[in-house]
């Protein structure tokens, strides 16, 4: 009886280690996709440069991301978050190799992930507000919707928002995974 119990305990420990390893591999996979999403957003927004084919002496008809400080913040936030994700890839690979993840390391991971998610969300939602204004304008404040003139600039900025929001969802999944790993340890 006792040997059977010992063997059963050994088998359950092996499956537990397998589940931990599976979670670490899923973590790595999510990180890679999040890197692609945020880096794509930063590059898509950073390379916007549209010049309209007519000009006057006083007004420049050129739109870049750096003309709006919110978009500059968006590019910087996405760049910082991509850099953090690349650095944490190493940490994720370390978790895969060591099946017994350390609690302190997981806690630091959760903290930085939540902080980076907050930064990403701030950049993405601020840009979303500006993009909405650019599409629709506002009658009360007399702000003209510029998308009617700067068409490709508008398309590019709207598209780069999508990658950023995908990154946010993946960050929430990453925090869930890290919390599960912490509670199972």
């Amino acid at each position: 009886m006792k040997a059977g119990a010992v063997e059963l305990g050994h088998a359950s420990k092996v499956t537990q280690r397998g589940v931990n390893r599976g979670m670490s591999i899923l973590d790595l996979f999510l990180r890679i996709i999040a890197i692609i999403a945020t880096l794509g957003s930063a590059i898509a927004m950073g390379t916007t440069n549209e010049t309209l084919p007519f000009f006057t002496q006083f007004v420049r008809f050129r739109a870049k991301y750096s003309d709006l400080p919110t978009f500059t913040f968006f590019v910087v936030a996405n760049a910082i978050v991509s850099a953090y994700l690349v650095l944490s890839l190493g940490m994720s690979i370390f978790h895969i190799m060591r099946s017994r993840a350390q609690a302190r390391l997981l806690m630091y991971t959760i903290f930085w992930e939540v902080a980076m998610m907050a930064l990403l969300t701030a950049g993405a939602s601020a840009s979303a507000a500006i993009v909405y204004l650019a599409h629709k304008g506002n009658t009360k404040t007399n702000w003209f919707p510029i998308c009617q003139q700067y068409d490709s600039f508008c398309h590019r900025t709207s598209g780069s928002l999508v990658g950023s929001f995908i990154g946010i969802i993946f960050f929430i999944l990453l925090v869930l995974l890290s919390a599960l790993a912490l509670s199972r340890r």
Partner: protein
Amino acid sequence: MDSKSKSHETAINISETESNKGKSTAAATIVATTKAIPHNQKGGWRRGVAIFDFILRLCGLVAALAAATTMGTTDETLPLFTQFFQFEASYDDLPAFSYFVVANAIASGYLVLSLPFSIVCIVRPHLVGARLVLLILDTVMVAFTTAGAAAAAAIVYLAHNGNSTTQWQAICQQFGDFCQQVSGAVVASFIAAVIFIFLVIFSALSLRRH
């Protein structure tokens, strides 16, 4: 093995049987004594963290509610008017501000609903499932609140400074009170978002098993 007893020492007896595949061939009985940690001391620091978590939730509730009401009660009418330009500003003129009010209202509602869960975690410090649920919902609320605060902050920045490329005028020079109230609401919302981040850290701290 009885760890709930009042005595602080337990004796563990492991005896070797014939079918044991263990490596040791030495003595048949291994007696080990350990000083078992008393149950209430082990849950002590967790209980402290849970109490602090509850207090932080109350502070976050105050911050989010203040942000929502400050933004929701904005309504400024300038004493002059023309046929074409309306000199009235309230929060629902800008969709970003409407989303701000909704997001902060949802955050306040969530905090009120999560207070009982927090009390349960104080009373029973070793509950894992409730803490995990609170952690995930707190993370989602961080994203929600930060999104609302950042969108409103972008609009407020535009209202203060305007923009030359897009020819958007800075309206704060006319609507002074409106601008001040809205800026105060944005600050309160950012404070609520930071409190949510701390709540996540505390939940993660108490999920640790030793």
